[in-house]
């Protein structure tokens, strides 16, 4: 087996050195009754060529986004990632290093984490950020628990504009942790009244910006109402590139900002691995979960970086830790930081403008298709359409998306996939457009949709 360096002669010599007569001597502590006799029911070892052939065959059964026009978003977005990013994250020293527990020989990872934390704080308009979370949804769940700890309250209010899968993650965590999560009904037009739900038991209000339906809402009033009750405002950003074009959540009074960083530096990967972002006000930092990298000096007075404030963490605090989190999303955070370094201020703002302009062009074009209503007045790079057939009868969004696949278009996410059983949203589709979409893509989408709805 090519990954195993020991020869049979080595094994024999090493067993002699150990003083064992056979390898089984070393497994003598396993009770005899439960010793396994190998893994005979699994396939045998295979060479690189055979594995590559088998996996390539599986991969070929999927429709890769590269080969068709793609307008699918809802929390994961197809953006162009420069070749430099993937090359750099495959450097042995980044790819095959562990969590930087020995800072003297992991300054590379630590300095990039410090850069990542700074970039995330700047983008979100917050004072500090951590070294990443698993993804946007788990970061949201952790943010709610963090707000409960900080306010010593147990009731979260969730906007109906929060991604339904994020909501489900928060609800699951809240149920098991004995906390309450109250969710407003989803409303594509964002007309919900969050403020009236806030009271002196509320720990936090959770709002997605832009909402899962694409709508952009000024959160300043919600922040003021939350703060008046000593509750926190948690803002969730699932398309981080939007912050290149939009006012930052920090500017509107957010206390904690969490998000999905996949759009910068990371591919779609069928849902993971992604990179959760978490930033907050300085005064909340000791309630924050996850790793934090901080600046210090070495014995010679030279600047260096270490993991810090670890008295919050499970390996020190055990059952009193702020979270059970251990591993984060280091390599994805690195990809984020490298891509954002390539973009810089100018590049990110231009990229955001391109995304918005492409989405505007798409919305205008789809609006001209008979049977399509664009519901949003405001949006960044994703909006909601209502689809109807002849005579204005509602069409099933999932069926429309399926029919579009047969015409070679990945046309978006039917809202019914995120909110099954909700009749009011059955004819709604979330449509996203990024810098990768061309005018031909838009024309092909409009033509295909026209056919499907006719």
């Amino acid at each position, binding site marked *: 087996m090519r990954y195993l*360096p020991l020869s049979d002669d080595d094994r024999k010599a090493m067993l002699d050195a150990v003083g064992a007569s056979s390898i089984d001597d*070393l497994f003598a*502590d*396993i009770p005899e009754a439960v*010793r*396994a006799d*190998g893994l005979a029911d699994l396939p045998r*070892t295979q060479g690189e060529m055979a594995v590559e052939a088998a*996996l390539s065959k*599986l*991969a070929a*059964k*999927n*429709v890769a*986004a590269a080969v068709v026009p793609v307008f*699918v978003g809802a929390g*994961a977005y197809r953006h162009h990632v420069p070749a*430099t990013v993937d090359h*750099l994250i495959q*450097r042995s*020293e*980044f*790819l095959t*290093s562990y969590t930087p527990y020995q800072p*003297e*020989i992991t300054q*590379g990872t630590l*300095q990039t984490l410090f850069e990542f934390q*700074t970039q995330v704080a700047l983008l979100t308009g917050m004072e*500090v950020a951590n*070294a990443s979370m*698993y*993804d946007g949804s*788990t970061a949201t769940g952790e943010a709610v628990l963090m707000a409960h700890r900080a306010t010593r309250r147990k009731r979260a209010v969730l906007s109906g504009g929060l991604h339904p899968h994020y909501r489900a*993650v928060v609800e699951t965590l809240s149920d098991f942790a004995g906390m309450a999560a109250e969710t407003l009904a989803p409303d594509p037009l964002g007309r919900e009244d969050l403020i009236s739900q806030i009271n002196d038991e509320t720990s936090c209000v959770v709002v997605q910006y832009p909402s899962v339906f694409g709508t952009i809402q000024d959160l300043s009033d919600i922040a003021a109402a939350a703060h008046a009750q000593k509750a926190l405002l948690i803002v969730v950003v699932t398309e981080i590139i939007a*912050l290149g074009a939009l*006012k*930052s959540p920090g500017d509107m009074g957010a206390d904690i900002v969490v998000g999905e960083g996949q759009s910068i530096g990371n591919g*779609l990967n069928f849902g993971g*691995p992604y990179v959760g972002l978490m930033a907050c006000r300085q005064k909340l*930092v000791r309630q924050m979960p996850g*790793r*934090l990298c*901080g600046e210090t000096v070495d*014995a*010679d007075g030279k*600047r260096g*970086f270490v993991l810090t404030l670890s008295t919050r963490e499970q390996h020190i605090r*055990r059952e009193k830790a702020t979270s*059970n989190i251990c*591993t984060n999303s280091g390599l994805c955070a690195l990809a984020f930081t*490298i891509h954002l*370094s390539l973009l*810089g*201020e100018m*590049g990110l703002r231009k*990229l955001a403008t*391109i995304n918005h302009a492409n989405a*505007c062009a798409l919305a205008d074009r789809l609006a001209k298709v008979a049977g399509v209503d664009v519901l949003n007045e405001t949006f960044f790079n994703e909006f909601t359409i209502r689809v109807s057939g002849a005579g204005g009868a509602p069409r099933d969004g999932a069926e429309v998306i399926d029919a579009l696949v047969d015409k070679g278009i990945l046309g978006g996410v039917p809202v019914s996939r995120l909110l099954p059983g909700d009749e009011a949203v059955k004819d709604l589709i979330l449509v996203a457009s990024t*810098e990768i979409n061309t005018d031909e893509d838009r024309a092909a989408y409009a033509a295909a949709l026209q056919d499907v709805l006719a």
Partner: protein
Amino acid sequence: MSMNKQGRPTTPAPARSSGTAGDRNNGGGDVAPETFSGNRGLSLEEPLLFEVGNLNSCGVDLPQPLDCAPRLGTLARETPIGLPGLSEPETMRHYVRLSQKNYSIDGGLYPLGSCTMKHNPRLNEKMARLPGFADVHPLQPQKTVQGALELIETLGGWLTEITGMAAVAMSPKAGAHGELCGMMAIKAAHLAKLKRSGTAGGAIANNSAAAAAAVAAAPKTVLVPESAHGTNPATAALIGYKVKTIPADADGTVRVDAVRAAIDDDTAAIMLTNPNTCGLFERDIVEIAKAIHDAGAYFYCDGANLNAIMGKAKPGDLGVDAMHINLHKTFSTPHGGGGPGAGPVVLSEALAPYAPVPFIVRDGGGFRLVEEASGAHEYGTGHDTPQQNAADPFGRLTAFHGQMGMFVRALSYMMSHGGDGLQQASEDAVLNANYVRAGLRDLFSQPFGDKPCMHEVLFDDSFLAGTGVTTLDFAKAMIDEGYHPMTMYFPLVVHGAMLVEPTESESKHALDEFIASLRALAIAAKAGDVDRFTSAPKFAPRKRLDETRAARSPRLRWQEDASS
């Protein structure tokens, strides 16, 4: 044996000064003089991005945006973000230079106990980048992702076969997330049991009084040995369990009598690592599982150390109800400087019904992803697939379907090894650890006596007694010898612990060199060569870093005015 609270410094030790700059330059024949640039040959200093980049640099050529009337309402950004950019060559140089300050498994032996730093095959990376896996959206119509679903399903089949378990939940994102998944399934099972027995009604998913009654009636204590990973008690506490610590026996294992003594009516589960963090197989494990099950509780096994027992013992046969599998340990997906990991959880028949959404079922000739808890029970009958029997999902742990990129890598690794190769990997991992043990046993101290270990060998610091050298000093001296230190001060049950896990990826030659270095260090420590240790590392990109200063006045981001 009592918990060694002094073993690990919980407040960081201040860095020791290695003398003045003048002393430093003349400190010995092996220390080179300072250079004018601060660089030393191939070892280059690199400032922060914020010190080399600027707001007008960009390393990406983007097309001109289309003209449009913005639809951002009143919320268009009006203030700069403050993000510096770099051209492409500058970006390459900045991050290549930073990478060169890292130790890596590709570059050297990485004996970090409990972390399983094995070789990361590049075939895995190539496979994960096939567009059919890497460039697929999680919410594409399912008919366009049948190959992706088949891959997850196939990997699940390997995992259940290797562990002898009934089912698997694939979505957890890392080991600790997997622990959360397993413990949630256990809590859900207790509540469902109460519901069935009529003690209380209602599911946990709603906030009814009945559900509250079930929660009130359910057992609330989880037993955790003191040698456990910190994530275990943290996970239990996160979902409202009280943690009761079980002492380890003098031989480093948990004995069934200690478990029996700890069990009472309030016991919900035990969380046990096997092989344990002392590198030993828990010999009483079958009796412990039985005692736990007799009490109506469940057995959570921390699967961090699965690498020791593939093909040698199956957790399902040992009586385990739930176990997470760190794909980034046993199945070679890269650690990436701290993730991403992946933590699928294998489940017994008793817990399988409560696995979270999403999960995959066979549907006609293809595969279907079940994404909603409601209505999932219709899939809860057959056992066609490892995931098919999740009749009563406890909820959702993450937005999408788990760490697909890690799944591809892990399956690529497993297919390469095959069942025979995986067993050989475990045998070699155990042999390598014992070879290190045999090579050091006369100079180092083993806290539980000289007996075979599993895939990692544990030493304590008693061999350093009276030398003035601590475990930390010893670890830092290993850096100067070109090695990443072993895990230090863990497990907590041993004073000044040093946990060495060489993995199966090391050749005999590499181990011989490693053993020789460690022997030389131990001899030097005992001979009074203290400065070699207390001033180490001397040859790393940085000397010892002042962790106290970092924690006392945290500086967690770059700020223009903060440069000292």
